[in-house]
């Protein structure tokens, strides 16, 4: 099996998962990442289709993902709304809007459109390189920089962060923005890099998988990336087996990462690894 194909399958999920992890480290669980990815995928497709330039598509998709995530972030961070509720709403909005715009532009006939792909060298393109560089960068930024420390404090003990002169809301919004950028890029890469096309609800749960992988990877960038590689590998393996006509109950293999994640959680519990203020709105005192 080609390692590079696995990497290509993994990239969208890993980008979204890294973004989700950064948000969660700051205490914001972004259930809306599915919607972020879908928005990114759609607007990347639109821009690339209109201009014929994949880079414009990449930028458009990333910005769209950022915007929709900031909308959710404004509700959950600024208004202190329930993060699960807001995320659900964002997912529905993104699904409805992208499906409608897609149908009104391309009809419901399921017409296959093909998009300009990213320039690549043996299947390695700029986004994959960005991801490979991004993992160690995330480790470094979270552990060694002042902002990384503030970000983790916003997720672990926001009161202390406030007391040391930071604004919890600002730190969390920046984390949400980063997760929006990565989620949008993930979606853009899904339509431009992986599929070179777009279909309604094309993310089909990949955003949710990204959330699951953050838990599976115990909120550590390298382990989250590893978890995504495993899922990407199983994904690619499944297509391979199908094309060879093997009759394997592959559903069980696909379910493996989630089962393993659940087992890990069952064995070690949430422990001290999950950010302790995760999903808790913070209001100033």
């Amino acid at each position: 099996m080609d390692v590079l194909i696995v990497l290509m399958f993994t990239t969208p999920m890993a980008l979204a998962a890294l973004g989700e992890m950064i948000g969660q480290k700051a205490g914001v669980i972004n259930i809306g990442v599915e919607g972020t990815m879908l928005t990114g995928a759609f607007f990347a497709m639109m821009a690339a289709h209109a201009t014929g330039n994949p880079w414009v598509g990449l930028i458009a998709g990333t910005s769209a993902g950022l915007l929709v995530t900031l909308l959710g972030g404004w509700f959950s961070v600024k208004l202190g709304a329930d993060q699960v509720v807001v995320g659900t709403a964002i997912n529905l909005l993104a699904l409805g809007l992208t499906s409608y715009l897609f149908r009104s532009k391309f009809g419901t006939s399921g017409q296959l459109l093909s998009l300009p792909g990213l320039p690549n060298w043996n299947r390695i393109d700029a986004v994959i390189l960005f991801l490979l560089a991004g993992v160690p960068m995330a480790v470094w930024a979270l552990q060694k920089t002042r902002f990384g420390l503030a970000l983790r404090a916003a997720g672990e003990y926001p009161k202390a962060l406030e007391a040391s002169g930071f604004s919890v809301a600002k730190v969390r919004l920046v984390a949400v923005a980063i997760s929006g950028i990565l989620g949008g890029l993930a979606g853009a890469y899904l339509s431009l890099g992986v599929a070179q096309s777009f279909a309604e609800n094309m993310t089909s749960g990949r955003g949710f998988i990204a959330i699951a992988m953050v838990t599976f990877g115990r909120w550590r960038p390298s382990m989250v990336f590893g978890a995504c590689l495993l899922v990407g590998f199983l994904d690619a393996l499944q297509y391979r087996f199908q094309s060879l006509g093997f009759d394997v109950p592959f559903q069980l293999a696909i379910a493996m990462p989630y089962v393993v994640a659940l087992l890990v959680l069952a064995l070690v519990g949430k422990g001290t690894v999950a950010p302790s203020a995760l999903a808790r709105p913070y209001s100033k005192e």
Partner: protein
Amino acid sequence: MNRHAQAALTVCGLLAILILSLLAFGLPIGKSLSLIFQGAFGDPYAWSRTLGKTTPLILCGLGVVIAWRAGLYNIGGEGQFVLGALMSACWAKWLVMPGWGYAGILALLVASCVGGALWAAIAAWLYIKRGVEAVISTLLLNFVAIQLLEYAVSGPLQEAKRQVPQTDGLAETLMLAKFNPQADLHYGVVVAVLVAVGVFIYLFRTKDGFRLRVVGDNPNVARANRFPTSAIQFRSLMLSGGLCGLAGGVELLGITGYLGKGFPQQLGFLAIPVALLAGLHPLWVLLSAFYFGALFAGTQNLASFTPAGTTLVYVIQGAAVLGLVGLRYWTRRPRRSEAD
């Protein structure tokens, strides 16, 4: 703001959001509204489509209400829905004989509750014993459930000819009776309404229900009164899963008659806005599910002049939930500053 004002505001807000979304989609308001109305209530078939869509939304919505009232975010309605239907299908294949008639139907519905409840029990156990947030565990369990469904319909539960990944159709005697054989509407809607009343009585008229709400509203008060918090939360999540499972069973016995890969239809997710807009109140869930059921049925009728279709419903659900969240913030804020 009192409850009635809030309810009135929600109803007006929902209509306003419907009209605004039509505007945003560039559709003619009058014509669209009348087409939607026609599609949802124009003739007996339309009514039947509306109520057919409403039924699973009510049951899943009630499931969401019970868990969220106890302070647990069950977003695994999807998985519990699937497991309920799967359990029903298993019993139908190996245990319940077509000759059982009404007893068979009852047995299959019980099976679906059991399936959903057991699936939710995994998340409940993880939460109570291991401190794992229900959001994460129920989310993970959704994926496992969907893969389990795909495995079952192309493996042990596959139809006799082994050609299509779906189960055999249920015997006619095991299907929920229909009001009109040509239309969607089946007696499951009666089940759903009865369950809603039951959940209302449980939550607001029994000691158990009261404790459940206290645990969700203020865990400290619950602990101070020595409520068995863990047991209550465990039970609430299982009940919640049982109701979502029942929704799956009712959909199987009432509408499809067989299980295939496309069975879930995201109803477990769509039920979350239904429950939220009902203010997590079981009787309002009836109304809110009816509204969205009607929209699902009605928007199909728009197909003649716009491709929008059900996408409109998703947009309205999302916008309505954000609107509600905003509304709560703006109405609560003054009170919060008084408390300071």
